[in-house]
């Protein structure tokens, strides 16, 4: 994976010094909270209901074991012994003291990590496919391009006070595992007719209160124009994105109001101008970055045999492992969704254990997924049983990937000041209701996502089943959505009808799965059945 050179390290160290200085000015009263707010946000520091929350960037979701270990140590030293992995492949700590943050950033900098631009109205951490470099179905590894974009977007002086936050994802396979079209810019690596690799640009996707699927605005941008084209997209947005109403400030609104063709035309004009400005790094820079993402030293004669006589192990392999490009290896996902647990949470000890196991069994590498799980990208099949046993002993062996227990949930009213309703207890109740392995196996793939308010941090629009917390005359209430998806077949869920209380929503989910089980045809997932039979049968069962 990527390693900092002296320049990268210096940039991160400088940021720590800058932030230390900003905190000093805040603590001495030189800065008011109002003045400090936009500054701390550019460093991932939020003020939540009870304490500060710090969001640490995990660029394109890739970590080495030393980094993972430090994430565990920070949870112990500065938080309450937990970390929370997020839907943008980052990690958050919910109980942070302002005075400690400069020291936390200094600890992070020692292992080439930071919290730069993890919030605020700037270009955020670049996300990517969690199986990058390991998946059998990818065209190229998308991460070198994400790294190039990471450097370009870090402290970009023109784009630090955009109308609103800006999220970019890069993928390189047909199966979209990063919700690429729900980003402000989604980039798909593609090959053109001449056999050259380039970037396909989708602009103006997003969730929040006005969910939109990003339209394609440029079919092919050559690799040596990637930064210039991105800069043109951002400049048009910075100049013309709406600033009169923060709910209409995301680029999706600009693209929607202008129309994608007009937006694309304006970008094209700016792009033509910028091409003469010499802002593109030479291809040699990409060539410098690429080898960091070379394959690890796979054994070429590793065996594909697996002893599946242990039924629990077998279940885990079937649910949580994914095809690797290298024979004899597999991609194993650790579910951070134990029955009744808090989605995405891991204890300091669990984090350190995963760090050690990655070192022993996955060439020192881990990934964070947007579904709030952890991936061991390169596990030799011969080691898989041992790995699973060690995970299972630590409560990390849950076999429920992409099934109804693998819930995405935002922090909700337990932590978040914007929330209408709690998300975590609903996730816990659903996870318990559908807890048994038999039930989950029977239902199969079902992506369930919960947000505590319309901001959609829990991706409820993109859930096969989505749950949205609303406020109904001061009482927490939950709406049910069906039919969303964030894969290559991205779609937005539709609300079934009137909302429910906490127990009512769990019952409604059960009724919806009942309709599916009664109607499904051979090989259909929940989503497929819904798409075939439509909303009505579900409505009837739920409200009838």
């Amino acid at each position, binding site marked *: 994976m990527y390693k900092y*050179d002296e*320049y*990268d390290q*210096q*940039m991160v160290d*400088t940021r720590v*010094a*800058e932030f230390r*200085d*900003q905190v000093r*000015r805040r603590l001495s009263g*030189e800065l008011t909270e109002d*003045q400090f707010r*936009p*500054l701390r946000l550019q460093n991932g520091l939020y003020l939540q209901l009870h304490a500060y929350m710090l969001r640490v960037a995990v660029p394109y979701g890739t970590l080495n074991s030393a980094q993972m270990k430090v994430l565990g140590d920070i949870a112990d030293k500065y938080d309450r012994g937990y970390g929370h992995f997020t839907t943008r492949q980052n990690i958050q700590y919910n109980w942070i003291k302002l005075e400690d943050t400069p020291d936390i950033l200094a600890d992070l900098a020692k292992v080439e990590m930071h919290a730069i631009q993890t919030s605020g*109205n700037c270009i955020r951490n670049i996300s990517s496919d969690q199986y990058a470099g390991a998946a059998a179905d990818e065209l190229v590894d998308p991460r070198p391009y994400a790294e190039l974009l990471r*450097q*370009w977007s*870090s*402290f*970009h*002086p*023109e*784009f*630090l*006070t*955009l109308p609103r936050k800006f999220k970019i994802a890069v993928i390189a396979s047909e199966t979209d595992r990063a919700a690429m079209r729900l980003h402000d810019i989604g980039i798909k690596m593609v090959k053109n007719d001449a056999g050259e690799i380039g970037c396909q640009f989708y602009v103006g996707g997003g969730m929040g209160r006005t969910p939109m699927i990003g339209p394609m605005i440029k079919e092919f941008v050559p690799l040596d124009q990637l930064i210039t084209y991105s800069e043109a997209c951002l*400049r048009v947005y*910075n*100049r013309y994105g709406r*600033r009169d109403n923060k709910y209409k400030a995301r680029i999706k609104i600009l693209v929607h109001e202008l129309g994608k063709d007009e937006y694309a035309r304006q970008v094209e004009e700016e792009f033509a*101008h*910028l091409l003469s*400005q*010499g*802002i593109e*790094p*030479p291809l*040699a*820079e990409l060539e*410098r970055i690429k080898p960091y993402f070379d394959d690890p030293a796979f054994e070429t004669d590793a065996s594909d045999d697996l002893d599946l006589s242990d039924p629990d192990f077998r279940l885990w392999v079937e649910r949580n492992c994914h095809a690797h490009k290298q024979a004899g290896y597999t991609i194993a996902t650790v579910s951070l969704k134990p029955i009744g647990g808090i989605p995405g949470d891991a204890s300091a000890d669990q984090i350190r254990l995963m760090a050690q196991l990655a070192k022993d069994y996955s060439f020192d590498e881990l990934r964070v997924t947007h579904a709030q799980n952890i991936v061991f990208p390169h596990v030799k099949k011969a080691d898989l049983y041992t790995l699973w046993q060690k995970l299972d002993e630590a409560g990390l062996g849950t076999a429920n990937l992409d099934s109804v227990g693998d819930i995405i949930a935002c922090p909700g009213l337990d932590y978040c000041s914007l929330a209408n309703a709690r998300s975590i207890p609903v996730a816990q109740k659903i996870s318990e209701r559908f807890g048994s392995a038999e039930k989950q196996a029977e239902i199969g793939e079902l992506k369930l996502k919960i947000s505590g308010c319309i901001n959609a941090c829990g991706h409820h629009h993109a859930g096969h089943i989505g749950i949205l917390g609303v406020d109904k005359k001061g009482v927490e209430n939950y709406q049910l959505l069906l039919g969303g998806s964030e894969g290559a077949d991205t779609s937005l869920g539709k609300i079934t009808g009137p909302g429910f209380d906490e127990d009512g929503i769990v019952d409604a989910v059960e009724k919806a799965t009942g309709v599916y089980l009664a109607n499904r045809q051979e090989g259909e997932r929940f989503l497929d059945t819904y798409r075939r039979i439509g909303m009505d049968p579900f409505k009837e069962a739920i409200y009838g």
Partner: protein
Amino acid sequence: MVEVQFRFRDDEAVNDPAVTVDAFTDQSNATAVRIEPGDDARALLPYLDQLALVEVNFPAWTDGRGYSSARVLREAGYTGEIRAVGDIVIDMLGHLKRCGFDAFAPEHPLNPTDAQNAFDRWDNVYQATADGRQPIWAKRHPAGV
């Protein structure tokens, strides 16, 4: 008029009152103009030779349109003064300078030590912008190789 607190130019200070973009493009022979966040800096491109001072106003520092305005002017070859006025805070200074600002007239004067630290903060930069500094990628690949 608010005083210029920092200036990185050797030529004589321009003290002409700045007119609005509309007034300027209508007819004026003014040599100083003031850009508001909603103005299109490109409207000035036909007149760059005539201009000695462009003020770019930041009514709120969190509105970043002025950064693009400055770069658009520099990219078009404008070499006169670009002055940041309005709600200018310490933490913007380095970034403004990178986008082509070379004079700063904050509404509320800034602590000079903190400001100097902010201007000097970044020994290296990742992007090529209007200030002509060599970005990190250029240092990694001298002569573009």
